[in-house]
C-alpha cells in the first residue's frame, strides 16, 4: 500500500516503491506507443487517450524515482517523436521528460493510489504536458500551438478517466512485495 501523504526526506524514505516483473515497463511502454500509433489510423479518437503519456505518468508515480521517471519519459517521448512523420526528435521527448520527473516527484509525496487522486494527477499533468509541448513548439518551431482550449479540456478529462481504468489494469502487473 502506498504512502498516503508525507513530506520531506524522512517521509520519502518510508514510502512504498512498487516493483514490476522484468521487462514489464519496457513492454508496456512499447505496447502503449504501438497501440497509440495503431489507434492513430482510426482518426482523432487516439488523441482522447495519449497512452504513452499515461504510461509515463503511471510508472513515474509508481516507481517514485525522478531519475527513472524522467528517463522513461524521455525514451517514450523520443520514440513517439520517431514514429511521427512531422515532429522533430525531442519535441515529445522534452515534454514527457518533464512530466515523468514531476510525476515521480509528486508520487513520492501524495497518495496516487486513489482513483480520484489519479484522475486529478493525470488531468493536471496532461495540461503540463500540453503546456511544455505548446511552449516548445511556439519557441522552437514557430507553430501557433494553443496552451489551453475547451477541446484540450475535454481531452484531458477523457484522458484522466481512461487513466483511472488503465492504471487499475497496470496495477495487476506489480510484483507482490
Amino acid at each position, binding site marked *: 500500500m502506498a504512502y498516503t501523504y508525507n513530506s520531506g526526506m524522512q517521509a520519502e524514505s518510508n514510502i512504498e516503491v512498487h516493483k514490476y516483473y522484468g521487462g514489464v515497463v519496457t513492454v508496456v511502454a512499447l505496447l502503449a506507443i504501438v497501440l497509440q500509433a495503431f489507434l492513430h489510423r482510426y482518426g482523432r479518437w487516439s488523441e482522447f487517450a495519449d497512452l504513452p503519456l499515461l504510461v509515463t505518468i503511471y510508472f513515474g508515480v509508481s516507481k517514485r524515482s525522478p531519475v527513472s521517471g524522467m528517463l522513461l519519459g524521455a525514451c517514450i517521448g523520443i520514440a513517439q517523436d520517431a514514429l511521427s512523420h512531422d515532429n522533430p526528435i525531442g519535441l515529445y521527448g522534452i515534454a514527457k521528460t518533464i512530466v515523468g520527473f514531476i510525476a515521480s516527484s509528486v508520487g513520492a509525496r501524495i497518495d496516487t493510489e486513489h482513483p480520484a487522486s489519479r484522475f486529478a494527477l493525470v488531468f493536471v499533468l496532461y495540461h503540463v504536458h500540453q503546456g511544455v509541448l505548446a511552449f*516548445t513548439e511556439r519557441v522552437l518551431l514557430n507553430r501557433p500551438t494553443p496552451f489551453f482550449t475547451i477541446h484540450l479540456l475535454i481531452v484531458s478529462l477523457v484522458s484522466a478517466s481512461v487513466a483511472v481504468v488503465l492504471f487499475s489494469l497496470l496495477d495487476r502487473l506489480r510484483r507482490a512485495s
Partner: protein
Amino acid sequence: MPEILTRHRPLALLATLVVAQILLLAFQIKRNSNVRLIRYWASEIVTPGEKGASSTFSGIGDIWSGYIALRGAHAQNLRLQQELGQLELRNQELESQAAEAKRLSALLDFREAHQEAPMLAAQVIGGSADPSSHTLFINKGERSGIRRNDAVITPTGIVGKIVEVTPGTAQILLVNDRDSGVGALFSDTRTQGILKGDGDPEPVMAYVTNDEKVHPGEVILTSGEDRIFPKGLLIGTVAGSKPGYPFQTIYVNTAARLDRLEDVIVLLSQEDLHPGANQSAGNVVVGLPPQPATQPVGPASATGPAATASASSVSSVAKPDSRAAKPSAPSIGRP
C-alpha cells in the same frame, strides 16, 4: 559545484536531458533561409562576442594608428610641406615657361607671316620710375640695330615707339603716354584722327569731329601718316565717345595689353607690312581677322577737320627714306 550536483542530481539530470533534447531539436529544425536552428543559435551567441572583439581590436588599432604610430607624422608633414612648396614653385616655373613659349610662338608666327619686313624681338626688362610716364625698357639697343622712332608692336597690336637708345637697351614710349601721338583711322569709315595719351591707362582718339558717328567696338588702325607705324596695324577698338568742342573725345581699348607687356617686336623699317599667306590680299591688319581692303588715304578720303589735323600733324614729320635719314623729331601730336 559537484556537491550541488550531487544533492540535486535529479534536477541536474532533468536539465541535462531537456537541454540535450533541445539541442537535438535545434539540429533538426530549420528556420528562415533554411538555416538550422543550432547554427542560428550558435551565430547569435558567438556574433556579439565577435563583434565586441572586433570593435575592441579595431579601436585599439585606431588608437595605435591614430595616435601612437603618428610619432613621425610631424616630420613627415614638414617634409611634405617642403615638397609641396618646391612643387608649387616648379609648377609656377612651368606655367611661366608655357606662357613664355606661347608668347614667343605668337611672335614667331608674326615674324614668319611678315618675313619681308625687318623686325627684331625684344623682351621688356623694366618700366619708368615716373608713374605719369608710360615708358618701358627693352633688352635690345643700338647694337641690335634699333634706332629712335622705330615702331614697337606685338602680334595683337601696336605698343609705341623707341624714344631713347643705348648700346644695349632701348626705351619705348607707349601709345598711352601724354607725349605720344599716332596717326589713326577707323577701319570702316576711314576717318582719320590722332591717337594720344591723356594720362589714363587707355589712350583717346582726338581730332574727330562731332559729326562723325562713332560706334563702340569700331576698329581703329594705324594710318601710316605719322611715318613711324606702317599703315594698317591694329590699334584697338572704340570703347566709347564723348562730345566736345570742337572735337569729340573717343576712348580707345588698345588691342595690345600695355600693362602686361613682356615680349615685343621692334620694326626696323617703316615699310608696310604685307599679309602672310593666310591673310587676304590688301588687308594688312595685324592681329585682326580679314578686313575689307583699305582705301587709299588722301585728301579725297580724309575729309573734315580730323583729316586736316592729322595731315597737318603728320606733315611736320619727314618720311624717312632710309635708316640714316630717320628723323629724331618729337612724335606726332606731341605738344
